[in-house]
C-alpha cells in the first residue's frame, strides 16, 4: 500500500461497530448472593410450615427433614450448573445447553409456573400475618384475597415503571429476618421445648403413609428459592467461586433454622392447631403461644411486620425473576417475542410483567370462594419447581455425558463411572427422588394435575406455533455447500 495514501472526499469511511458491544459489570459478592437467596428461601418458612402441617401433621419435622436432604442434592447440582453456566435462565439455561432448545423451553416454562405461584402464594400469606393489626385480614377470605390481589397489582405497577429497588432494604430485611428466626428458635427451645411431650404429640398425630409422602412432596416448596441464587449468578463477581460458596452457606443456614422452627412450632401448639388456625401464618402462631407475656408482646408485632416485609420482597422477587427468565428465553426464541419487549420510556419488560401478574392474580381468585386454595397453591408450586429441579439434575448428568471436557469450576464429588463418564451420585438420587415426588403430587392432587399439566400443554402449543411461524432464512442468503 502506498504510504502517501490519503482519504479523498467521497471515499467511503466505515467505522466498525464495537465488536464487544458492552461489558457486564458484576459487583455482587458472597453476602449479597446469600442474602438474596436466603431472602427467598427464608421467606418460604412463613407459609411452607403450615402447608406441610396440613397433610403431614405430627410428622411435619420429619417431612421437612427428608425434603431438606433432597435440598442438599439439589443445591449441589445448582452449584455445579451455575458455576459452569452463570446465566440468567437458571435450570432452563442448564437444560438448553444439555439437551437443546425444546427441553430448555420445557424447563423454562415449568420454572415460570413456579415463579407465578411464588407470586401468588407469597401475596396470599401476607394478609394473615398483617391480621395482627386488623383482624379481618386473617379472618375474612374476601378481604384477605382482595388484599393479596391488591399487593400483586401494586407490585406490577411498580415494576412496569421500574422504580429503583434498593438492595440495602433487601439485605437489611434478610439480616433482621435471620436474627428474628434464630431468636425465635432459641427462645422456643428454652421456653417450650420438651422432647417427651413433643414426641408424644408427634406420635398422637402421626399421618398415614400416603400423607407423609405427600407432606415430603409439599415440603420441597420450602427450598425452592435456590433458583433465585442461580439467577443472581449473572451479576456476581467470580460466580464460579462465590455462588457455590453462597449455596453451601445457605444449605447450612436453612437446614438449621428450618429444623429449629419446625420443632419449636410443634412444641408451641398441637399439629391440629398448626394445620388449622395457624396454617397460613405458622410463625405468628409460635409467637402467640410463647408463655412469657413481655416476649409475646414484643415478638407478635415484630413478626407481623417482618413476615409482611419478607413476603412482599419474595412476591417482588418472583415478579422480577419471571420477567428476567421470560426475557432470557425470548432472546433464544423460546417464548413469544412480545414477552421480551422493553418499554420505550421505562426500559422494563412491561408486557411480561403485566401478563404474569395477571396470571398470578387469576390463581388467587379461588381464594374468594374455596377453602382448600392454600394447599392447592402449595402443590401447584411444587409441580412447577420439582419439574425444574428434575431438569436441573438431568442436565448436570447430561452435560457430564455430552460435554465432559466442559470447564467446571465447581464439580460435585462422589461420582460413579458409567461408560467412561463421571456421573454424580447426588444428581442421580436427586433426579430419581424429585421425579417420584412429582409423580406422586400429580397422582394425588387433582387441582395441581390439571392446572400444572394444562400450563405445560399451553406452553408447548405456543412453542410449536412459534417454531413454525419463525421466519426461516431465505434461500438467497444461504451459503450452499459444494458437493
Amino acid at each position, binding site marked *: 500500500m502506498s504510504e502517501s495514501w490519503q482519504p479523498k472526499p467521497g471515499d467511503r469511511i466505515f467505522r466498525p461497530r*464495537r465488536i464487544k458491544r458492552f*461489558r*457486564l*459489570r458484576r459487583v455482587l459478592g458472597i453476602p449479597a448472593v446469600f442474602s438474596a437467596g436466603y431472602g427467598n428461601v427464608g421467606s418460604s418458612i412463613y407459609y411452607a410450615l403450615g402447608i406441610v402441617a396440613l397433610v403431614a401433621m405430627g410428622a411435619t419435622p420429619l417431612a421437612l427433614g427428608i425434603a431438606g436432604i433432597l435440598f442438599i442434592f439439589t443445591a449441589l447440582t445448582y452449584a455445579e450448573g451455575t458455576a459452569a453456566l452463570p*446465566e440468567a435462565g437458571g435450570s432452563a439455561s442448564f437444560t438448553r445447553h444439555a439437551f437443546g432448545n425444546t427441553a430448555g423451553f420445557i424447563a423454562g416454562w415449568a420454572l415460570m409456573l413456579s415463579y407465578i405461584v411464588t407470586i401468588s402464594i407469597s401475596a396470599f400469606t401476607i394478609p394473615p400475618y398483617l391480621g395482627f393489626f386488623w383482624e379481618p385480614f386473617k379472618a375474612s377470605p374476601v378481604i384477605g384475597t382482595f388484599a393479596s390481589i391488591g399487593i400483586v397489582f401494586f407490585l406490577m405497577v411498580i415494576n412496569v415503571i421500574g422504580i429503583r429497588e434498593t438492595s440495602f432494604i433487601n439485605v437489611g430485611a434478610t439480616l433482621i429476618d435471620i436474627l428474628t428466626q434464630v431468636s425465635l428458635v432459641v427462645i422456643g427451645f428454652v421456653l417450650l421445648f420438651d422432647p417427651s411431650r413433643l414426641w408424644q404429640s408427634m406420635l398422637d398425630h402421626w399421618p398415614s403413609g400416603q400423607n407423609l409422602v405427600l407432606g415430603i412432596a409439599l415440603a420441597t416448596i420450602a427450598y425452592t428459592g435456590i433458583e433465585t441464587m442461580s439467577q443472581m449468578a*449473572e*451479576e456476581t463477581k467470580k460466580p464460579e467461586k462465590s455462588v457455590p460458596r453462597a449455596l453451601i452457606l445457605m444449605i447450612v443456614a436453612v437446614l438449621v433454622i428450618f429444623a429449629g422452627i419446625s420443632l419449636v412450632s410443634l412444641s408451641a401448639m398441637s399439629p391440629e392447631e398448626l394445620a388449622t388456625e395457624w396454617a397460613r401464618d405458622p410463625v405468628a402462631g409460635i409467637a402467640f403461644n410463647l408463655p412469657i407475656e413481655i416476649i409475646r408482646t414484643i415478638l407478635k408485632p415484630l413478626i407481623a411486620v417482618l413476615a409482611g416485609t419478607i413476603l412482599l420482597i419474595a412476591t417482588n422477587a418472583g415478579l422480577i425473576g419471571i420477567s428476567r427468565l421470560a*426475557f432470557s428465553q425470548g*432472546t433464544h426464541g423460546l417464548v413469544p417475542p412480545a414477552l421480551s419487549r422493553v418499554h420505550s420510556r421505562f426500559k*422494563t419488560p412491561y408486557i411480561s410483567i403485566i401478563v404474569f401478574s395477571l396470571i398470578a392474580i387469576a390463581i388467587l381468585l379461588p381464594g374468594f370462594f374455596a377453602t382448600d386454595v392454600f394447599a392447592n397453591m402449595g402443590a401447584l408450586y411444587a409441580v412447577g419447581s420439582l419439574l425444574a429441579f428434575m431438569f436441573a439434575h438431568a442436565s448436570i448428568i447430561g452435560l457430564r455425558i455430552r460435554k465432559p471436557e466442559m470447564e467446571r469450576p465447581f464439580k460435585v464429588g462422589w461420582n460413579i463411572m458409567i461408560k467412561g463418564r463421571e456421573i454424580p451420585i447426588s444428581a442421580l438420587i436427586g433426579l430419581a427422588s424429585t421425579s417420584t415426588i412429582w409423580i406422586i403430587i400429580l397422582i394425588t392432587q387433582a387441582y395441581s394435575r390439571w392446572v400444572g399439566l394444562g400450563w405445560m400443554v399451553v406452553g408447548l402449543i405456543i412453542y410449536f406455533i412459534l417454531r413454525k411461524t419463525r421466519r426461516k432464512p431465505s434461500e438467497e442468503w444461504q451459503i450452499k455447500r459444494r458437493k
Partner: protein
Amino acid sequence: MVFKKILVPVVGSEADEETMKLACRLAKKDKGKVWAVSVVAIKRALPLDAEIDSEIRKAEDVLNSVESIAEEEDSEVETDVLQAREVGPAIVDEAVERGVNLILMGITYKKRFGQFSLGNVVPYVLKNSPCPVMLYQQ
C-alpha cells in the same frame, strides 16, 4: 501528583467535553492514559446482559463524541460501554480493576426539590473510590 491512569465516566451531559479535555491534558502531562466509560443501568426486571439497543446506541454515541474530543487533543483514549445494575458501583469497580490513579467526573448544576443536588452516583463514587476523585462542574 502523577496521574498515569485516568477514568472518565461520561453520560452525554454538557460537562463531558470540558471534562474530557481536562483529562487528556492531565494525562498528556504525565504521559498517562485515559479511559472513558459509559454505564448503561439495567433494570432488575431484565437480565444483566439484556441488549437494549436504544440505550447502547446512546452510550456509543456519547463515547464516539469523547473519542473525537481526545483526537482533537491529540491524546489516546480507550472507551467502553458497561452494563450494570447501579452506575456508582460499576464506576468504582472499574477503577479498582484498572488500577486508576484518578477518577474525573463532569457534573452539571442540578436541583432536586429546590435544593442543589449531586444525585446518587457522585456521592457513591466520592465515598467508595479507591483513588482521588476530581469533580468538574460545568
